[in-house]
């Protein structure tokens, strides 16, 4: 059963147990569609395998070995994307309606068919097929691109960090093996700069990860999360005389995107301890978390340097640095703002210059 016209955009497989019907169909539509025909289900499956360009399948409901709906149940399993249409007389209508409701069949056409009706239905079906296929292809290539990007980002971050960590390792060794005070001071500066660059790499990766995870199904344990973050900065040389106060009350489940919540909290907490006032005798960073059924309220406060009133509106901008001391990349709060938007949260910053800063955060609970 060979097609006649390769320029037609739609190709239809018509399955019917009566050869006369097949012939009539072919004669009627050969100018409209590329047509394939099959006399029974087995033959139809052969045609489908042989001609992958078939987009639409029309089957007669009443066939001796198998009904059209039963045939489609099988076809749907193997070729889920092909659009399926049933040809039927009124006596079979309830079975067909059931099939449509179950999603097995796109539409039904009454017998005897009329030319315009079939033409329109097949054209619509083709459009649906093409749209779905397009979407599917786009999705697939997008997934592939994401995967490649992931690989690329991680391999770049590793390749950038490797030599940096070697430099850091040598500087550490120098602290053991070098006695010269001047040299030790230089090595200390080298370490400082390397750590800064490394922090920048981490921020970029976090930003990337936050942007690429749209999943809202992570159960978040704030107590653990906050403690992990504090654990990771506690050993920082500047954190030695800072008192960390953690007050988390979480009884119920809290669901959101873990990556973004982690990015926000670790930036806020590390900022709070980074911008301390040197002459303050009781430096503290306080983290308070309250969880309710519909949201988490987080407060991160400190008695550090604070922010001048006229600068408060700028702190969430990319590359803005409140302190010009080389200690930050200027990305931190920009990343926080982006991450807050991703999880549909709200962030508010209050600060008094020379007294301290308090950041309040509200994150909706996506537990339903």
């Amino acid at each position, binding site marked *: 059963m060979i097609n006649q016209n390769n320029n037609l955009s739609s190709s239809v497989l018509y399955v019917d147990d009566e050869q006369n019907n097949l012939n009539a169909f072919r004669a009627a539509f050969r100018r409209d569609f590329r047509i394939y025909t099959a006399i029974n289900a087995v033959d139809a499956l052969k045609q489908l395998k042989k001609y992958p360009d078939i987009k639409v399948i029309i089957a007669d409901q009443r066939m001796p070995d198998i009904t059209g709906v039963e045939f489609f149940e099988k076809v749907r399993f193997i070729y889920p994307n092909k659009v399926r249409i049933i040809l039927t007389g009124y006596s079979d209508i309830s079975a067909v309606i059931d099939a449509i409701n179950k999603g097995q069949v796109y539409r039904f056409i009454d017998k005897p068919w009329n030319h315009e009706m079939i033409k329109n239905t097949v054209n619509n079906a083709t459009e649906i097929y093409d749209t779905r296929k397009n979407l599917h292809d786009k999705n697939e290539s997008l997934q592939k691109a994401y995967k490649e990007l992931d690989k690329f980002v*991680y391999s770049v971050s590793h390749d950038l960090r490797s030599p940096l960590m*070697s430099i850091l390792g040598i500087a550490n060794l120098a602290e053991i093996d070098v006695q010269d005070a001047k040299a030790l001071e230089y090595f200390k500066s080298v370490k400082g700069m390397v750590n800064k660059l490394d922090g920048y790499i981490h921020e970029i990766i976090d930003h990337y990860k936050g942007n690429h995870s749209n999943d809202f199904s992570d159960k978040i344990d704030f107590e653990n999360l906050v403690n992990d973050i504090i654990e990771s900065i506690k050993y920082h040389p500047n954190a030695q005389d800072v008192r960390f106060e953690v007050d988390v009350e979480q009884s119920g489940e809290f669901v959101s995107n873990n990556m973004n919540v982690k990015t926000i909290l670790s930036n806020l907490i590390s900022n709070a301890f980074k911008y301390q006032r040197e002459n303050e005798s009781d430096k503290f960073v306080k983290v308070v978390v309250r969880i309710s059924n519909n949201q988490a309220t987080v407060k991160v406060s400190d008695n550090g340097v604070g922010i001048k009133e006229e600068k408060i509106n700028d702190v969430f901008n990319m590359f803005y640095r409140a302190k010009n001391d080389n200690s930050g990349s200027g990305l931190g709060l920009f990343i926080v703002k982006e991450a807050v938007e991703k999880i549909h949260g709200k962030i508010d910053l209050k600060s008094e210059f020379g007294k301290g800063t308090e950041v309040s955060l509200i994150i909706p609970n996506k537990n339903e």
Partner: protein
Amino acid sequence: MNNTFTILLIDDNDIDLMIGERLISVVNPDVQVNGFTCGQRALDWLKDLGSDCLHQKVVLFIDIYMNEMNGFEVAHRATQLIESFGCEAECYLLSATIDDSDLRRIKNDPKIKGFIGKPITQDVLNNIVSTSKSF
């Protein structure tokens, strides 16, 4: 009772290898560090040495990303070899990676004792050496 052990350090980066060797010798001056720039050479060395010359416990520090054989493969093969001598292997993987999937893989691998983020430091080594010694 034998309270010392054999240490292998495998890293295809010369500088990291040097850093590791020096740090281990600072932390544990009485143990010799056997450094290798590729996994195969380390495996051959173990094979040639045989069971008689190994201590009961063998501690391995292995870089993850190496050209010919990656850290996981080296760890698995070395563990198999060491266990076939009737000795005990303890593998730590080293890397500058920040890829969560690497860390997950290490966590789920029963043959890997732990992950050490580069650069390897005295504190980390002290911890490992003190737990290994108490064995």
